[in-house]
């Protein structure tokens, strides 16, 4: 008997579902849009265009606040919900495996799938813009900055992925609730003055985003200067990830999925 082998099967089944899903084509088109923007920017000789570092920072914020959330929403909500809707969960939950580990391995699979979909266009966009001759930073400085941005984008996938995995485990219509949360609550709350914004994940992602002056202006515009410290932001993002992942695992352990069938 080989315990880890069982969970690798969950990982593989989920990964195949992600990669072979029709929505992956849509996701790839959407996540590669900034690459096409970068190509256009790179090939354009228009001198009135914004500076490369500003263009890059804005695109990275787009990756952070839109694309990483979109990818997390589409795949996170589907992690458990697809198995429930397709009624294949029965095959998994009648096997001698821990239900909460099923969620954990599915989440790991989601992370790999999301990284494959999101990171290549981020890297390509960075390479296209940062090697532009109009760039005022040297490549090394840009690379350090980009690495930090990439790290925050990964944290975004982790946090939103955990939240949407919970939605998919718990709710009957996780996509609708997820959409309302991601592009309703998370966006509207950022423009409300005061501490209310601290009840959004996006606030902490923006607060921990690299503090290059050109980027800071964009962040200040969104956060209106109400940043949390880097350490606090990372701690809260990590906490959100752990809490929602644990809630998802507990839901899988305690919920009667066959009830809905």
């Amino acid at each position: 008997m080989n315990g880890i082998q069982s969970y690798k099967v969950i990982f593989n089944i989920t990964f195949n579902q992600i990669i072979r899903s029709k929505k992956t084509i849509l996701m790839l088109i959407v996540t590669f849009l900034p690459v096409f923007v970068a190509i256009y920017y790179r090939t354009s000789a228009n001198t009135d265009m914004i500076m490369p570092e500003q263009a890059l920072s804005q695109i990275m914020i787009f990756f952070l606040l839109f694309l990483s959330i979109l990818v997390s929403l589409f795949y996170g909500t589907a992690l458990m919900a697809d198995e429930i809707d397709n009624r294949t969960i029965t095959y998994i939950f009648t096997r001698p495996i821990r239900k909460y580990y099923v969620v954990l391995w599915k989440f790991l699979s989601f992370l790999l799938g999301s990284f494959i979909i999101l990171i290549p266009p981020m890297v390509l966009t960075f390479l296209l813009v940062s090697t532009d001759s109009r760039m005022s930073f040297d490549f090394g400085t840009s690379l350090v900055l980009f690495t930090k941005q990439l790290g925050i984008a990964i944290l975004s996938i982790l946090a939103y992925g955990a939240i949407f995995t919970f939605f998919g485990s718990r709710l009957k219509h996780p996509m609708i609730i997820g959409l309302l949360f991601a592009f309703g609550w998370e966006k509207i709350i950022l423009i409300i003055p005061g501490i209310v914004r601290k009840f959004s994940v996006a606030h902490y992602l923006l607060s921990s985003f690299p503090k290059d002056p050109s980027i800071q202006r964009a962040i200040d515009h969104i956060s209106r200067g109400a940043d949390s410290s880097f350490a606090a932001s990372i701690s809260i993002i990590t906490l959100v990830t752990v809490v929602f992942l644990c809630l998802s695992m507990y839901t899988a352990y305690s919920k009667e999925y066959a009830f809905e069938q």
Partner: protein
Amino acid sequence: MIPIVEAANLSKWYGQVIGINDITIAIAPGITGLLGPNGAGKSTLLKLMVGILRPSKGEIKIMGDHVWNNIEISKIIGYCPDLDAFYENMTGYNFVLNMALLSGFAKDESETLTMQTIERVDMLEQKDKKIVSYSKGMRQRIKLAQAIIHDPKILFLDEPLSGMDPIGRHDTIKLIKELGLKGKSVIVSSHILHEIEAMTDNILLINNGRILAEGNVHEIRELIDTHPHNVYIICDKPRHLASILMEFDDISGVKINLDDKSLIIETLKPDEFYSRLPKILAENDISVENLQSPDDNLQAVFRYLVG
């Protein structure tokens, strides 16, 4: 003998709808047929038995242990759901292989078991095709394969013959009987009597979430005596025969049909009725053209009990 399944005051509600209503049963090892019409509660009861549903009230145990979230029980049971649900883009081979791996077998062992099991359900030729391309019968076979891949002690099969062609039915019935002979316990549901009858004498009759009767076919047949038994007679003097029969206490009803040639007699004691009838016919010079008892089969028992 320790029951393989024990339920005590078991109930399951789906909101306001009662799925299973206060069932107390003890199922002995061997093959047991769970018989009931669609919506009777068969699938709900099986789902409670395999631990994918949790009782709303009461308890259910497999081999003396609670089922819900008990992976030790999952190791000894196999479940073939009635749902036509699959990982459609997987091949039949990969589906069964994955189920073997999920059962905890190492890769090499899983591959060997998968080939053996697929051969057992006669799906070797189709094993490399995607499940989405399978016929209903093939899907049933591959679903059965995943249920037996880990050689479980107790097998729960929910309508396993549904959608199968006659050869598939024959093979599956044979396989279930073989499993029984090898000492496995099988609980198999169906809404078709002769399917169950072909597999086992042990029957649980279920309707409206309640167990109506349990025991072997013969014991259940005896239950006929507690329910009205219909006899259909075509004769030359139906009205005269009706008037004679109405004098007996065990006759609960007589209906003369519109054709005025036939009558339906409802009796609570069919054995006494049949022993008395020839004498009545002879003494009253009644000529019988046809006598049928539509209840004289297992189907009738079922109809009586669920009716």
